[in-house]
C-alpha cells in the first residue's frame, strides 16, 4: 500500500499539470475545432517568461507572475491573429499543421534562449515538506496542485456565469448560428486563444517549477494532447480527470511493470492507455458522440 501511494501521490501532482495543458487544448478545440500542438510551446514560454522576470530581471514574485501572464496573453493573441485567423474556413488538418509549424517556429526561439542549458527558479519557495502515510509531500507541490484546481474552478465559473463565456459556449456549438445571433466569432476566437495561452502558461510555470526549464518542456504539449483525447476533446471535466488518472497510471506502469520489460515504459504507458480508451470509448471518457444526420 505504501509503495502504491509513493507512486500514486507524485503522479497525482504531475497529473494536475497535465490536466491544465489538456484544458488549454480542450478550450481551443471546443470553440474552434482546432487541435493544437502549439500549446506545448505556449507552456514552455510561460515558464520562460516567468524565469526571465524572476531570475534575469530580479522582479518580485507577483510582478513576475503578472509579467508571465501578460506576455502569454500577447503571445496567444499574436498566434491566433497572425497564423490561425487566415485559416478560418480551411480544412482542419491545415490548422493542425499550422500549430505544428508554430511549434517549430517557436522551438527555434526557445532553444536560442536555452542554449542547451537548464534554467530553474532556484530557491523560490521551499516551504519544506510533510509526510502523509509515509509519503513525503512537498508543500510547493500542494500549492501547484491547488492552483490547478483553482484554474479549473475559475474556468467553470467563467463559462457558466459571464456573458463572454456563454458566447464561447454558443460558438462551440455552431459557428454560423452564433454569428447570426450577434456574437462576433472572430473576437471569440482571439479570446479563446488568449485564455488558453494563459492557462498553458500557468501550467508552464508549475511544470517548470517542479521539473526545471529544459529542452523537453515543449513536448509536455503532446502529453496534454493525449490527456485531452483521453478525457474527450470537448470536455473540461474530462481533461481534469484524465490528467490526474494519466499522471497516476504513468507512475504505476513505470513502477510495477518496468522491471518486467526492461524499462522505458513511462512514456509508452500513456499511448497504450490512449489506444485502449479509444477502442473502448471512441470519443474519450467524457467526449460527446456526434450523431450524424443523412
Amino acid at each position: 500500500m505504501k509503495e502504491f501511494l509513493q507512486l500514486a501521490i507524485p503522479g497525482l501532482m504531475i497529473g494536475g499539470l497535465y490536466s491544465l495543458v489538456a484544458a488549454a487544448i480542450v478550450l481551443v478545440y471546443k470553440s474552434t475545432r482546432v487541435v493544437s500542438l502549439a500549446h506545448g510551446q505556449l507552456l514552455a514560454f510561460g515558464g520562460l517568461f516567468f524565469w526571465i522576470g524572476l531570475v534575469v530581471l530580479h522582479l518580485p514574485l507577483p510582478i513576475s507572475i503578472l509579467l508571465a501572464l501578460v506576455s502569454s496573453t500577447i503571445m496567444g493573441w499574436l498566434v491566433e491573429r497572425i497564423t490561425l485567423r487566415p485559416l478560418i474556413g480551411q480544412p482542419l488538418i491545415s490548422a493542425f499543421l499550422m500549430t505544428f509549424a508554430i511549434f517549430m517556429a517557436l522551438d527555434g526561439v526557445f532553444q536560442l534562449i536555452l542554449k542547451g542549458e537548464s534554467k530553474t527558479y532556484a530557491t523560490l519557495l521551499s516551504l519544506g515538506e510533510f509526510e502523509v502515510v509515509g509519503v513525503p509531500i512537498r508543500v510547493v507541490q500542494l500549492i501547484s496542485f491547488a492552483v490547478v484546481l483553482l484554474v479549473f474552478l475559475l474556468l467553470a465559473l467563467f463559462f457558466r456565469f459571464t456573458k463572454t463565456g456563454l458566447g464561447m459556449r454558443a460558438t462551440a456549438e455552431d459557428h454560423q448560428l452564433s454569428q447570426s445571433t450577434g456574437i462576433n466569432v472572430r473576437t471569440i476566437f482571439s479570446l479563446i486563444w488568449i485564455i488558453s495561452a494563459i492557462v498553458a502558461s500557468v501550467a508552464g510555470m508549475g511544470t517548470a517549477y517542479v521539473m526545471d526549464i529544459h529542452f523537453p518542456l515543449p513536448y509536455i504539449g503532446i502529453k496534454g494532447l493525449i490527456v485531452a483525447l483521453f478525457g474527450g476533446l470537448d470536455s473540461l471535466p474530462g481533461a481534469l480527470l484524465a490528467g490526474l488518472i494519466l499522471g497516476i497510471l504513468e507512475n504505476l506502469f513505470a513502477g510495477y511493470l518496468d522491471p518486467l520489460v526492461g524499462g522505458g515504459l513511462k512514456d509508452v504507458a500513456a499511448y497504450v492507455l490512449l489506444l485502449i480508451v479509444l477502442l473502448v470509448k471512441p470519443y474519450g471518457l467524457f467526449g460527446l458522440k456526434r450523431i450524424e444526420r443523412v
Partner: protein
Amino acid sequence: MRKILCGVLIFTFLFVTGVLQSNAQKEVTYLSLADYTAAIAGLNVPGDMGTEDYFKELNAKGGVDGVKVKFIGVDTRYDVARGVSAYKRYRAEPKLLVANAIGTPIGKAVGPLATKDKIVQLVPGDGEFQANLGRIFVWGPTYQDAFAATVDWLLADWKKKGKTGMPKLGFISWDSAYGKEPLRGGKEYAEKRGVTLAPPEFFPPGTMDHTVYLSRLAKAEVNYIFVGGVDPTPTNVIRDAHKLGLTKTIQFFCDYWGPTSLGVRLHPEALEGTVIVSYYLRGDDARKHPLSNLWVKYGHGKLEDMNEVYTIGMLWAMTFEAGLKIALKEVGYKKLDGEAMYQAYQKLTGLERAGLQGPCAYSPTSRRGSWEVRFYQVRAGKVTSISDWIKAPDAVSLHKF
C-alpha cells in the same frame, strides 16, 4: 515588395563576397556534426564554441605553418538523416580531415562513410570503437573505463568508511545506446571486483520526473548510484533524488557529462556531495586555466558563466592542431589528406594538452583520447577536485563486442 527585394539583394551580395573571401587561402576543414537544439545540446553547444574559438585564435596567429583551419558546425538535431546528409554535403570541402560526430546513432551512421572516405572521425566515448580499431577515435577514456574507475573509487571509499561486506551499486541512465554503453564492460569489471549491481534503470531521454526509478533503486538498498545522461539530465535526476531524501544515505556519481558548474549552481543543495568522474578539468580548475580566457575574449560572457565543456572543445582543437602539424611535416600541404591525418593521429601518443586532459593515448592500438580520469565532488556548491589524475582501468577488453 521592392524593399524585400533590395534586402535580399544586399544579403546575397554580402553572402557571395563572404564566400569568395573565405576561399582565398590555404586551409583545412574540421567538421562538427553536432546537436545544437535537441537532447544533447547542453554538451554540444559549449563544446563547439570551444573548438571554434580555439581555431579562431589559431588562425589569428597564422594557423599551423600557414595553414588555416576552417570550422564547420552543423546542427543535426540528433537526427541520423540530417547527420548523414550533412556529412555527404561537406565531405567535398577542401581538405576535410576530421569529422566529429556527436550522438551515438549519428556516429554509427557516419562511421562507415568516413572510413570509406579515409578521414578521421571522432566520437564521444563508446568503447565499441576501441574494441574494433578503425578510423574512429574517442575523445577521452571510454565510458566503461570511467565506470570502472568509479568502481575502484567506491571500493576505496567503502573501506575508508570502515564498512564491511561488499557495497551495492545502482545504475540509472537514458534508455538508449549511449545510456547502456558504460555497462558493456563496466558490468564485467564490477563483477570482477565483487561489487553487486542492482538491476539498472533506464528512462527515455527527455523524461522530466525520475522519482519512480530512484525509489526502485532505493528499495533495492543500493549504497551508490551511478547517474548517466547529458546535463541537465543528471542534475535533474539528483534533484529528484534529493526530493526523495536519497542523497543523505546514498552516494551519487555522475559520468563525464554530469553536472557542470552551471548545473550545480541551479541545484546546489541537491547536488551537494555528488562525485563526478571526469577526464577534463572542472569547476575552478577549469576556470583558472589560462585558455579559459578565450571564453571572455570571444564575448560569451563572464568567466563564471563558463561551461567546463567549453574546454573539451578546445581539447579537440588542440589535438587536431598537433595532428595537423605532424601530417604537414610528413606529407606537406599538397598531399595532405584524411589518410595522412589518420597516420598522424596514431602518432599523438603522449601529447600534452595544456594540462586540460591527461596525456593523449592515441596510438596504432588505442583509440582512447587519454587514460586518465580525475574525481570531483560538489562541496559547498562548488565543484572541487578530490583526486589527482588517475589511470582508469581497461574495462573495454572485458566485454565481447
